[in-house]
């Protein structure tokens, strides 16, 4: 089975070639030649990924790289964790008990302190460019680890608020088949997905529409008809599986574990989705852009994060899913070491933290370090390309997988990107 965006159909390929000859950008025709093999390899491994996205940029100094005793230290205090010598913020007590499963990278250095460009960079692994829209990590994972046999979308985003984190890159040059399926704050299926006809009536209507589409397609000879039909079929399959988004029956016994918040609920939805085979789910927690009242904001947000994240890791672990599910915690950047005079911290990308857990990474590791104030990386710098190479490697995706935009080759990760081998299993 192939994806529509790879243009495997004869007409599709011809159309792309014609457009390319006209000097326009061709989306990813190079994927024809190597992505099927990579996808087959990745799919066999059955790896999944959940990205916990801290929109606005969580402070590394208030979470995983605290600087006790320094003048720029905030008002939070570090606590010991399950791993001797590894300390985390006092408002992450449940995560502190799971550090044996975490690979904490304290040496991220991405040099992009803008929300929009930073979000793009930390979703694609690439610096934003004018003429190329790179695919988000979710689209890449959907392409290589997704399966058309799945009734659900392969790239799902929950709790996406837009705002400071927009625009996301979406599927970029991979094409519309890998666009994310986005759900709002509560992660519930949209209201308009509730069937309004009986199953029997719906089936009759669908059969009628299918026969009309087929006849029309034969008359017009346009690939658009087939694409539309495919999209329609996927929508119907999604509707048939919409129950996975309804956590009400399970929520009663999971509420305490995940925390009674939208983020906690979305973490539970994420677990249910990967359990169903969805290869990539992103869950967003908003409001980390704490230019003012940094400590108030983090104090309000971290307990929610702590419960949702720890609940997710424990739940995945107990169900045997964690070994094949990579859970990534990151935002677009960290926050300034200095505290401004509005009690806030501003954007900072020179030194910050990202945390990985689960499938493919070693737990109990702290990789890299910053200086005494958390201002610069002291050892083992990791840039966005390295991080994405690491993530893709854990997911069975070749970081050097090549795509083409027009005649320009673009790899899954930028030139020079190297996986952080020290944290890989």
């Amino acid at each position, binding site marked *: 089975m192939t994806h529509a965006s790879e243009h495997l159909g004869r007409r599709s390929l011809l159309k792309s070639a014609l457009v390319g000859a006209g000097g326009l950008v061709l989306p990813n025709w190079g994927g024809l030649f190597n992505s099927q093999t990579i996808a087959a390899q990745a799919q066999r491994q059955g790896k999944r990924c959940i990205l916990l996205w801290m929109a606005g940029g969580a402070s590394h100094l208030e979470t995983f790289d605290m600087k006790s005793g320094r*003048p720029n230290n905030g*008002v939070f*205090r570090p606590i010991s964790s399950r791993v001797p010598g590894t300390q985390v913020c006092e408002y992450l007590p449940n995560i502190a008990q799971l550090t044996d499963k975490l690979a904490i990278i304290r040496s991220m250095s991405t040099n992009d302190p803008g929300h929009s460009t930073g979000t793009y960079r930390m979703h694609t692994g690439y610096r934003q460019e004018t003429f190329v829209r790179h695919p988000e990590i979710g689209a890449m994972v959907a392409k290589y680890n997704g399966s058309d046999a799945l009734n659900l979308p392969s790239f799902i985003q929950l709790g996406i608020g837009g705002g400071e984190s927009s625009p996301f890159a979406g599927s970029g040059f991979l094409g519309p088949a890998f666009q994310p399926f986005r759900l709002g704050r509560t992660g519930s299926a949209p209201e308009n997905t509730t069937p309004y006809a009986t199953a029997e009536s719906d089936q009759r209507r669908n059969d009628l529409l299918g026969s009309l589409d087929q006849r029309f397609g034969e008359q017009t000879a346009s690939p658009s008809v087939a694409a539309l039909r495919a999209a329609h079929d996927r929508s119907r399959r999604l509707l048939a599986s919409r129950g996975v988004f309804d956590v009400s029956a399970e929520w009663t016994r999971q509420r305490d574990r995940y925390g009674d918040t939208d983020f906690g609920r979305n973490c539970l939805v994420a677990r249910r989705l990967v359990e169903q085979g969805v290869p990539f789910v992103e869950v967003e927690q908003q*409001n980390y852009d704490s230019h003012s*009242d940094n400590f*108030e904001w983090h104090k309000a947000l971290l*307990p929610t994060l702590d419960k949702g994240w720890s609940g997710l890791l424990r739940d995945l672990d107990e169900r045997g899913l964690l070994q094949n599910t990579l859970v990534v915690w990151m935002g677009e950047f960290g926050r300034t070491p200095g505290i401004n*005079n*509005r009690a806030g911290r501003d954007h900072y990308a020179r030194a910050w933290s990202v945390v990985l857990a689960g499938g493919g990474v070693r737990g109990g590791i702290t990789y890299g370090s910053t200086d005494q104030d958390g201002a610069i990386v002291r050892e083992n710098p990791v840039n966005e390309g390295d991080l994405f190479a690491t993530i893709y490697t854990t997911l069975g995706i070749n970081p050097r997988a090549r795509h083409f935009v027009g005649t320009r080759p673009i790899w899954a990760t930028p030139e020079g990107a190297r996986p952080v081998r020290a944290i890989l299993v």
Partner: protein
Amino acid sequence: MLIRTLGLFLLFAIAVPVSAQEKGIPAAWSITWDEDWVTAITFVGKSQRIIAGNKQGRIVAWDLPEKAGDPLPSPVRRFDGHTNQITALAVTADGRWLVSTSYDHTVRLWDLQAPAKTKGTVLLRTGSKKKEKGDEMPVDVQDADKVLNAHAEWVRSLSLSPDGKLLLTGDDKGIVILWQLPEGRELKRITSQGWLKAVALAPDGKQALTCASSVRYATFPNSLHIWDLATGKLALNLGETLTGKKKGSEAMGVAAACYSPDGKTIALAQGAGEIEGGIGKVFLVDAASGKKLQEITAHQSGVVALAFSPDGQHIASAGRDTLVKLWKVADGKSVAVLGKSRGGQFRDWIHAVAFSADGAWLAAGDMAGFVHVFSLKK
């Protein structure tokens, strides 16, 4: 003395044109200290001594000179023990006991009449970026006489009864504790909800005001409650009386609150910066009914601290706009502006204000690490 001072002060206020008021009355002294946020301040009894606390958990006392224009005061004592930000300081009216609350989860009692046991230094900085110009001044050093560990979260707020025998403290778990002083014995505990940024004990000791607020999307609503301390039951929901809405879920975010000396009026400081969307109002509320008496548009981007003058005729407010303002309680009219706006994005906001016992001085601490003392004697 007090009446005379305030009378002169009011005459001055009437005589000064509004435009001149907005420029602000300059401080008699601006004491540099540690280059970290000064977060709490109090006067000691009827003396000229002030005590301030900062974000690092340090507490220092200074003795003010007799009159404005005298040399900058030097620190005289350091109070050691807290390990995180000082949130509030108060001294019993007799000047004997200092009470401090902190993000380190503790409440500490300090006997101000006890001799200091050791000597140490206090680092004073010039306020310039050249930290090497900092200067260490010798001071006496004192440890706390009692450390009260009953709170399990940040202790945000405290309030003393006029006789100094009752202490009320509130924390970020929504726990309110009434203590007996100087023993430090817990008398009563009320379980509220949320971050108690302000608590106030009614002067008769019978009721307690609690104000909970947070940033948006926190897991608890703002609340403004008055509790009957005898029963521990909710006596009045100010969130409802002020907004007319049930459940108080629409209560404003309040950063500071206090009772007037006669207990008839409550002052509420609205505004926690972006949380309140830039609003910075002072509300004067009838303590018995919860009805609004005055609504004063006081500061840009949030009011942070409040204090009634000792005679209850005036109230001082401090805000994120880096100003201290004085208001007449009877009609809510502006009386004077102290300090000057530093512009920009309201940097160096004022964290704390306190009147001297005779109403002749007002002290304020700011985020830049200054303790400002204003003379109200004109």
